[in-house]
């Protein structure tokens, strides 16, 4: 039988791997709109991580800032400038 401690650390490791994949996709993606979405996925994984690491007050600040305001501000920036990295090919 799997113990609760192992379960919690397993969820933490899975969230770490999810955030690593999302960060890689966000940095490598040429479409900046998709990069913002991957960065939001990574922020969601970090938010669950804060909750499991017993920091509920950080969670309350982090969710509106990193899942709400960061993508909103960067979407505003993409709307004002250009959408594709390295010129407008498409």
């Amino acid at each position, binding site marked *: 039988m799997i*113990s*609760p*401690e*192992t379960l*919690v*650390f*397993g969820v*933490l*490791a899975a*969230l*770490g*791997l999810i*955030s*690593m994949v999302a*960060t*890689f996709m*966000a*940095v490598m993606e040429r479409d*900046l709109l998709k*990069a*913002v979405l991957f*960065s939001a996925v*990574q*922020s969601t994984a*970090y938010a669950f*991580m*804060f909750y499991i*690491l*017993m*920091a*509920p*007050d*950080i969670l309350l*600040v*982090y969710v509106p*800032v*990193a899942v709400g*305001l*960061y993508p909103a*501000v*960067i979407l*505003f*920036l*993409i709307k*004002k*400038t*250009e959408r594709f*990295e*390295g*010129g407008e090919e498409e």
Partner: protein
Amino acid sequence: MIDVNAFLFSVLVFSLIMNLGISLYGIFWRPSLVKKIIALTILGDTANVLAIVVGYRAWIAPNRPPIPPVLTTWKPTATDLSKFSSLAVDPLPQALVLTAVVIGLAVTVFLVFLTIQVYRLHGTTDVRKIAKLKG
């Protein structure tokens, strides 16, 4: 016998350090200024999570998790305090991270408006093209 919990915890720390590396790559080698801002937010968030991970503590028993650093009694006695300090995680990194999240938001908004100004003046957000401009 391999310690499964220590292994899973080191997977977590490894993935966070990999995140630091990937976002540093994004800041230094990706050409778009918008991509640099996205990578910078990821870098700041990863540093915050690392600080929280440093403040975490080992479990007392396999079914006894640590508690958040919040005192729930109005007039705590010495026994309450010693029980609290034997169970709660470290509150100091959480206080620092709470400040850092808000400061990171302010820095990001400032960089966003700098980038908009660069686009208005030069018509591009590609640093390779901006570096070739004269004047």
